């Protein structure tokens, strides 16, 4: 299956009840897929006039107890940031998929990872973060999608899945999970009130001190996420002289590069963050302990690089190689860059 469609099917099997989105390349197949399958499965599918609207619809549905997803790409994901700030502040869970195309601006529809900052820093206003996950294969996208709703609902937080357009558009065999039970009503939701007191879902904290207290509660929740959420893949790091740090499609390019390098007797390894936020920084620091250098690879001008440097401090030499604008380096190019660090 194409990854975008596999994500859609995995979401259905995870009990998706409502989807709101817009067609925008390179994620349109996901929207088209759900336009057929979600109504068949008894859910609600709606094309929104734009992405700010889509995320608002999703906000309403999740506030009312739905298991909700929206998806977009680059410029559309940018428009969603207003809503994501409100979702995070109002603690409303959902899955937001960004199949990342090249920017800035309209850019082009080729692969990119340049939405890393937007996905991991909280792209809207105010102090907040959202859980951000990055698959590097169709199967991993299926697995993460299936689990993302649990993470979102458990922590009352939006989850962003950052899928670079190459992973998003590739076709691979996948094993699909069994259908999960649908969402369960929680006490904080609106509608179906019965005898309970009125609930208000809001991001407004107007009285002095109340917003500060709310924000600290959000920060505390966020720090609690680190153990629960942090995901990574570590590959041949133990004896590596150079550890490549890459996520998404660059993790796979790096793996092939490492294979080629090892055949030549050059010791390289890979550390691939799967959760981009919380970032598995401490695990990374352990993994690169014996390496002489670290090479960060991204389809951007260097964004995850900042998190790697934060995690490693000045204990390691950290280098960067990246391409932008839809260019994807070949394994040879990557190996060549890494070899430079061995001399």
């Amino acid at each position, binding site marked *: 299956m194409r990854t975008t469609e596999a994500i859609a099917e995995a979401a259905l099997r995870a009990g998706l009840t409502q989807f709101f989105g817009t067609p925008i390349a390179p994620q349109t197949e996901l929207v088209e897929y759900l336009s057929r399958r979600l109504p068949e499965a008894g859910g609600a599918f709606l094309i929104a006039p734009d992405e700010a609207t889509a995320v*608002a*619809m999703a*906000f309403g549905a999740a506030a009312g107890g739905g298991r909700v997803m929206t998806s977009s790409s680059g410029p559309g994901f940018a428009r969603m940031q207003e809503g994501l700030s409100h979702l995070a502040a109002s603690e409303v869970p959902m899955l937001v998929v960004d199949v990342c195309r090249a920017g800035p601006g309209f850019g082009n529809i080729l692969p990119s990872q340049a939405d890393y900052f937007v996905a991991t820093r909280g792209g809207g206003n105010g102090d907040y973060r959202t859980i951000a996950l990055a698959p590097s294969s169709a199967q991993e996208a299926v697995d993460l999608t299936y689990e993302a709703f649990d993470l979102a609902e458990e922590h009352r937080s939006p989850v962003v899945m950052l899928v670079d357009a190459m992973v998003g558009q590739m076709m691979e065999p996948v094993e699909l999970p069994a259908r999960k039970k649908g969402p369960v009503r929680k006490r904080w939701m*609106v*509608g179906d009130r019965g005898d309970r007191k009125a609930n*208000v879902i809001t991001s*407004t904290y107007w009285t002095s001190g109340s917003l500060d207290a709310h924000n600290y509660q959000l920060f505390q929740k966020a720090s609690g996420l680190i153990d629960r959420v942090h995901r990574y893949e570590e590959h041949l790091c133990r004896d590596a002289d150079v550890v490549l740090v890459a996520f998404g499609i660059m993790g796979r390019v790096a793996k092939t590069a490492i294979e080629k390098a090892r055949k030549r007797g050059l010791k390289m390894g890979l550390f691939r963050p799967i959760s981009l936020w919380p970032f598995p920084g401490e695990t990374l620091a352990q993994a690169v302990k014996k390496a002489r250098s670290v090479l960060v690879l991204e389809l951007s001008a260097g964004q995850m690089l900042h998190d790697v440097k934060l995690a490693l401090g000045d204990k390691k030499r950290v280098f960067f190689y990246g391409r932008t604008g839809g260019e994807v380096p070949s394994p040879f190019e990557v190996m060549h860059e890494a070899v430079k660090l061995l001399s």
Partner: protein
Amino acid sequence: MTTQGARSSILRPIPFHYCAGCSHSVLHRLLAEVIEELDLHRRAVGVCGVGCSFLMYDFLDLDFVSSSPGRAPSVAAGLKRAVPDAAVFTYQGETDALSAGLTDLVHAVSRNEKITMLVVNNCATGLSGGQLSPTVLAGQKTRTTPAGRDPQQHGHPIRLSEMLAGMDLPARIERVALNSPENVERARLALRAAFRFPLEGRGTALVEVLGSCTTYWGLSPTDAETHVAQTMVPAFPLGRFGRNEEG
């Protein structure tokens, strides 16, 4: 025996924070009474926008979601899909609904969402301090049109109900005012119908409510009522609009 004028149990026993003569107080009360009359106290879910009424959930004992500017109709559309049995209503001012939120509003009406939409049009961006709003009349002075709204420069006021009527949709659209006891009673009937219409599965019911903003018009409550009658109503005629003019 029925008691007239009793306070609705949906209205919490706390004073409104609105200015003297502000229409939000009247409309909140009407809303509470109509919801109670229709026995929707436990079914109604409000979506409030951004404007002077953004804290309306403090006053009304109802479930609420607060939306970012302009998005209330979209939030309501999503909510209605998750809780089909709920009486979902939006409450927005005209700046919220017609500037940031025109896309959300027009598309929600075009989809004939089964929701009730209230748009309070008081020719003022009140919460920010009385600046130009999309319905400010030509010549009207605001904090950002100190010499008066010049349509050549600042555009013409948007007439929402007429615009929606032009789309020839099945929605129920009505414009009411709150500047006299008779008009308040007409507004009550309009609200009642506007809650029933979506619950009967017929579609969107939108009520454009002409309100007054005494503070930023610089008028006393009674002068503001006269202003609504003499200046606003001629520009924004009251009544039913569009295909669905009956029922």
